């Protein structure tokens, strides 16, 4: 059924956890299909067999069999299995097993600052410490996230707009915040979707297991956020670690040059 779903448009999955979600998607849809088809066949057969032109005498008691009760119990059992066997554990691993940069694990840390209608992406750089953000310093052209250059931790930070890049095979830990309204951070190819709610810092993580290559992956906004909601799309590239580092250096140099210009 996975092939069918892909034919119908299900995006490729390039994350470590997406496979289990797709698997559950398949089980649930098989379950739905079997119920609907079985139930539909019974329905159509009943309509034909008991049409008034054919029935001489109505049986007011109707069905006496206990089969329907067994079927209802079977539905309950399957639902319990889907819930306890799959959904709850998958969810638990999403919201509890975060990568732990503090314990020295290699982790790509990212802070996404959503605003109408762009994704600002803030990287902490080699020191793994995000520079201080100050709302008063926000300038939509030169400093959309309000990065405070006085903070030493900010020296190796970069920010980019609508251009999310991560190295392949390293867990990514994203912290989501919003400047204005509720957005929803969605990476269809990573099976990631998380509301971004102003006033809250929400973490989300994934492990990209292959590069995006020529495929045009995107970060999408999935929550109505205003008039430009439909175009709140950013590029999303998964690249080799070396390629990522080269891009990072380039952007760092570009930001330094811009800062000098301002000076």
């Amino acid at each position: 059924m996975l092939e069918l779903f892909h034919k119908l448009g299900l995006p490729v999955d390039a994350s470590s956890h997406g496979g289990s979600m797709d698997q559950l998607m398949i089980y649930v849809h098989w379950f739905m299909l079997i119920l609907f088809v079985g139930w539909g066949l019974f329905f159509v057969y009943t309509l034909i067999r008991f049409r008034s032109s054919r029935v001489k005498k109505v049986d007011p008691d109707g069905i006496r069999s206990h089969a329907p009760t067994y079927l209802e119990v079977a539905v309950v059992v399957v639902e319990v299995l889907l819930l306890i066997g799959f959904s709850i554990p998958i969810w638990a691993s999403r919201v509890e097993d975060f990568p732990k940069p503090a314990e020295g694990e290699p982790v790509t840390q990212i802070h996404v600052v959503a605003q109408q209608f762009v994704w600002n992406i803030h990287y902490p750089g080699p020191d793994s410490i995000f520079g201080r953000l100050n709302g008063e310093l926000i300038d939509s052209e030169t400093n959309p996230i309000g990065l405070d250059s006085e903070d030493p931790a900010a020296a190796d930070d970069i920010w980019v707009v609508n251009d999310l890049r991560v190295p392949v095979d390293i867990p990514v830990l994203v912290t989501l915040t919003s400047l204005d309204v509720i957005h929803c951070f969605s990476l269809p190819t990573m099976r990631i979707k998380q509301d971004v709610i102003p006033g809250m810092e929400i973490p989300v993580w994934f492990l990209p297991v292959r590069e995006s290559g020529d495929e045009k992956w995107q970060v999408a906004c999935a929550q109505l956020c205003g008039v430009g909601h439909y175009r709140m799309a950013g590029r999303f590239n998964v690249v080799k670690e070396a390629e990522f580092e080269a891009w990072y250096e380039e952007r760092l140099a570009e930001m330094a040059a811009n800062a000098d210009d301002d000076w």
Partner: protein
Amino acid sequence: MSDHDSHKLSFVQRYIFSQDHKVIGIQYAITALCFMFLGLVLMMLMRWQLAYPGADDPSIPIFGKLLKNALPGGKLTPELYNSLGAMHGTIMVFLGVVPLAVGAFGNYLVPLQVGAGDMAFPKLNMSSYWAFFIGGVVMLSSFLMPGGAANSGWTSYPPMADIAQGGLSAQFSTRLLSGQSFWLIGMVFLISSSLLGSINTIVTIIQLRVKGLTFMRLPFMVWAQLVTAFLLLLAFPPLEAAGLMQLADRLVGSNFFLPAGLVVTGEAVGRVGGGSPLLWQHLFWFLAHPEVYVLILPAMGIVAEIIANNTRKPLRGYKSMVYSILFLGFMSFIVWAHHMFLTDMGTVISAFFQTTTMIISIPSVVVITAMVLSLWGGSIRFTTPMLFALAFLPMFGIGGLTGLPLGLAATDVHLHDTYYVIGHFHYVVAPGTILALFGGIYYWFPKATGRKMSDVLGRIHFWPTLICLNVIFFPMFIQGMAGVSRRLFDGGATYTHAQPVMWTNKVMMMGAWTLALVQIPFIFNFFWSIRHGRKVGPNPWEATTLEWAAPSPPIPHGNFETPPVVYRDAYAYSQPGCAKDYLPQNEPEVG
């Protein structure tokens, strides 16, 4: 009030400010049907936009020219698209389906089916309709506000809804005279209307049942309306409070839903904040999930009545159906946060809401199974109402089943806020509830008018409507699987993952426009049959419940010539030892 008195009533008292539950029911029905058609028209405009999002694509036919001023170049703007989206949802739910299912069918049928002369509180009943009417006028007038009608979705999530359309303006008049503020004011009227109506229904059912009509002899429709009324009574007040809180945020500068430090388009908002956007979502969904059952229970009630009558046999498992909807009503209050899995929810809370969501699917399965099994052993008459009632079953089935992958948090991640969700709840409400409501109109039309609607036109209405609804809503599951988000002005043109399924937008557009076209036979049939339909007696379907014991139409202010007495269960069809195949509830024991 006796029949004699009613002759002295002026036209205005009789037809406009009427206190007769039947007139009020019909007022609700006609107003709601008009709103539903408006909701459909808004959707036609949106569907055209989604099918033709490009600047060079063809402009909207007919409406593009008719509404030249509102539609520059005959096309929608993103602002207007968002307004139409918010208003389509609001109109369909709060001004269309609920008023028709509860206001119209509940009002018209509950007193008749319990054998009462009227609702317990006729004046309250009248005020309920007029509060609804004012709410509707306020909602409609919001289209004329600067910036247009509310555009923050029918869910109205803050902070967006707080700040949209001049919510942060220094001018009080700008903040007040805006689509969003009018939406909130309109909602307060609509909610108040529902509260007045629900109290009336509850008291009528509990207090005004005629002699012999015990609870377990009530028609299933009355049970459905009773549970619905309790849901409205208990679930709406939180949203009414939330609506007033959002209005306060907009009008008097409170911060219920605004956190500190917001920066909008590069400017600091400058409010102290401290509020929580999530509070709104909890209050909203605490109403809006029970609201789903407000939309579906009356439809189940209608379908149960029609099926019993057209199979000529009692409902199978009437008691289990009653217990199921009581349980369902209770459970519907503890599933709301399954709409909020992506708002940073931990394992325990998400497990709780996933579990309650799976549990609530059980009573629905029981009710639907009981209705399908009721067909077995019957003698099925394919009357026009029966066609609609039968179609409800598989359509609601699709709607219910597709709720499963959304109710499991792990699959919800990919499907959340995609067209899969839109497909799911539309299958429940449109091919589900709305088909049942149509069936109810065909079924009880003879009671209200003394005439039947045309069966030929009924069939011309039924089949294309059923096909169009599926053409519109089934592709939504495919789009959702592809991850296409809802509420996109360009139908997904911005996104690469949407490209493989963009063609379905044209299919859905054609479905929507054809759907409007095939409602013409219904509209014609409805008005033509009032005067020219085939005349029928008080009980044309040979039914058993009490409304058929009253004349058609029932006597103004009183319904029955003499108050009926009930001798048996609601569905005594094809009873052994009985000459005819139905025994009305009010007919004394024979032999």
